[in-house]
């Protein structure tokens, strides 16, 4: 069972991660953060699953696609929904490449982000 109103933010940029957590917490969500794919996998394997993961594409050590590959191999976390967040214009292809239904472009439109999160939480 996923933890209600919980979100995992995976992004290597500390400021963006921090602001996003502030904003979402103000909106009433329980937010956890990870600086790359490895941290995210560690978190997911040791905590209750969040409602949704906001996943950056480009990160050091373990990037978005690598995280996604590992997630799909691990049946215990494979079903957790993922929303791709990227600064690149090729969001649509990236989204298809890693098999996630939604992609948000940086800079983020807050209204859109909240509306999308509401679908999962």
């Amino acid at each position, binding site marked *: 069972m996923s933890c209600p109103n919980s979100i995992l933010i995976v992004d290597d*940029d500390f*400021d963006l991660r921090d602001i996003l957590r*502030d904003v979402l917490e103000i909106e009433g969500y329980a937010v956890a953060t990870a600086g790359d794919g490895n941290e995210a996998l560690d978190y997911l394997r040791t905590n209750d699953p969040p409602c949704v993961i906001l996943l950056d594409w480009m990160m050091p050590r373990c990037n978005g696609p690598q995280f996604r590959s590992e997630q799909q191999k691990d049946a215990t976390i494979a079903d957790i929904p993922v929303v791709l967040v990227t*600064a*690149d214009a090729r969001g649509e*292809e990236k989204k298809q490449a890693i098999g996630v239904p939604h992609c948000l472009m*940086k*800079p983020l439109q807050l209204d859109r982000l909240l509306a999308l999160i509401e679908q999962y939480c």
Partner: protein
Amino acid sequence: MDENFMTADRLRELRLLDRVVEPFVAANASGILVYVNPAAGQLLRWEPDALVGQPLISIMPPRMHEAHRRGFGRFVEGGKPRIMGKPIRVPALRSDNTEIEIELLLSTLELETGGVVFLGSMRARTELVELERQSELLALLETLLATAPIGLAFVDCELQYVRVNEALAALNGVPAEAHIGKSLAEVHPDFASTLEPVYRGVIETGLPSIGRELRREDPVVPGGAAHYLASHYPIRGARGEVLGVGVIVQDITERKRMEAERELLLERERRAHAAVQAERQRLYGLFMQAPAVIAVSRGPDHVFEMANPAFRALSGGVDPIGKSLREIRAELGRADGFVGFHDDIYASGQPFVAHEYPLTVPIDGTEGQQVRYYSFVIQPTRDAEGHVDGLLRHGVDVTEQVVARRRAEELATQLGNQQQWLEAVLNLLPVPLLFIEPATANVTFANVAAQEMAGGEIPRFVAANAEHTVHACTDDEGQRIADAEMPTVRVARGETLRDFTMNWHLPQGSKPLLLSGDTLPSMHGHAELAVLAFQDISRLKTIQAELTEAVRVRDEFMSVAGHELRTPLAALALQIQSLQRLTGQSERDDRIHARLGKAIRQVERLSELVTELLDVSRIASGTLELHVERFDLAALVVEVVARLEDSATQAGVRLVFNPVTEVFGEWDRSRIDQVTTNLLINAIKYGDKKPVVVVVEGKNDHGRITVRDEGIGIAHDAQERVFERFERAVSERHYGGLGVGLWLCREIVHAHGGRIALHSEPGVGTTVTADFPQRFSKEQV
């Protein structure tokens, strides 16, 4: 029944004898003639009917009457039904009381109609003698026919063989008996078409065909030809009618062969004779027309017996034949040592040879004289014992060659001077130059600049290909250039080189070279020449490499910078949006909310600029990738128009777009979106608050977007460069942006294999049209 007379009916059978040529008479048992056929009438000179009813003794001499009565009585009393008597010779009495000896053969004949008659067949003795004579003649003819060495035959009017002798059978290769009753066509299937007209001609005209020569394939010797001499005669019957054709055939094959051999020999002899004649004529013609001076003299007095026209011309037109050299010189009024000179050659037997010897000779047709040069030989001739018996003079006029050689020597001197002058000029040039001989690829000249670059003198007249060059040459990829592809060899074989690049590896280091070369045609006495000019482009190469690296670093920086800029922008935008959501409902909060909204728009604008920068670096580094999918262009433009509606309203521009039809195609959705957005943003920006019309259509397998504004337009001289990077047609102070919008549009359209065109009139407006093929193909791109 009266036996003396027979009725006509009963005699009808005897009438059959009317048409027989032998004389017949018939008598009844009373010795009364009951029938006389016309032949008998003719023999006895009686009308046949006059004799019928007369007693038999009417046709017998009186001295035979008594014997007849006895004999006839015995004959009748004998009563034998058939008597086949021997022929008996008896005299017969004619109507004119003359007698004729006949041979009589008696027999009895039972008539089918009843009764018996005695039948007498008569033959005149004289006729018998004739028959015997004819029989003997016939036997003789048969012998002749059989033994004649020539072919004989009789062919009837149906063209069938009736008689053939052995000689003709042998010629035909068919047994004599196999001819009989056969037609010409049956006996000679291959030859009948030749023979039949001859036979028919004889039969139809009644005229003989004498001595006709016939030729056919030899029926006995396969592959050989047989020749015949044939005569055809009409054979006539008693009344002169043609009964057939007599043939006499003589085999003349051997004679023909002999004739042909003789003709062949004669022809060979004629040809040989003609060849000898022609050879003689040719030699004489050569002698007479030779451009050389030829003359032969005999004896110690040098009496001329042969001299060609050239010699006569040299001798001032004097006819030398039969004259001594001394007489000729006297006739010419020259008493000099010329004769003694010839005497010496004659006496010594040693030939005299002279080259380019000057002789004063008369000018043709004038009184004047001129000096001409001759190369000649005076050769002693010898008799059978080896003693000198004459002199042969043979000389050639070499004046033209002497003059030409002297002229060539003068020209060579002049050319040498020119060459020195030219080389001095070329040595002053800073551009390295080589002259190359086209036929051999030998370097015939290298100027000082070329020698300096080579670090020493380039040896002249040495082939300048790779084998003979001490320093190797490589192409831009570092591969050694093959001999045949060396620039020197290429220009030597007539190729034109323009901006050919290679590396020349010298002991002092490698030099990148830029070479140009061509062939100079022969001119002013100089032979054809290949020229190769080259330039050291080391510095140019260094600068080019530095520039390429600078561009690469810049593009990489822009890519990284673009990405790095976006992340803080994202955080900033998120922060502002979050603050907006925290504002309350007071008037002061409204003002804060409005100001935060303006801040957001600035962030968005900054973000768009960053996107453009990223695109520029991606396209410039060649990493633009298209993600093609099938979609409706009109629907996409509807979205873009809707998205820009607010911006257009703020700029006072009305966007007009009425999609008429769907236009599906295979394109990159986000990139086509980008092109449409850029075109519309430009039209809004420069639209001068007037409507902007957008049209989408499908035409000729292409999708087309047209954006037309009625704004400020673009100056004609700027229309070309608006598609270049960082270019704009208006002052950047009045209109913002990086100046990459149209460049991006063009690059994206080209990446789709399409075209973009711009038509603009300052003060009237601008129309931009972008065409994209509806089916995407990498080859098109």
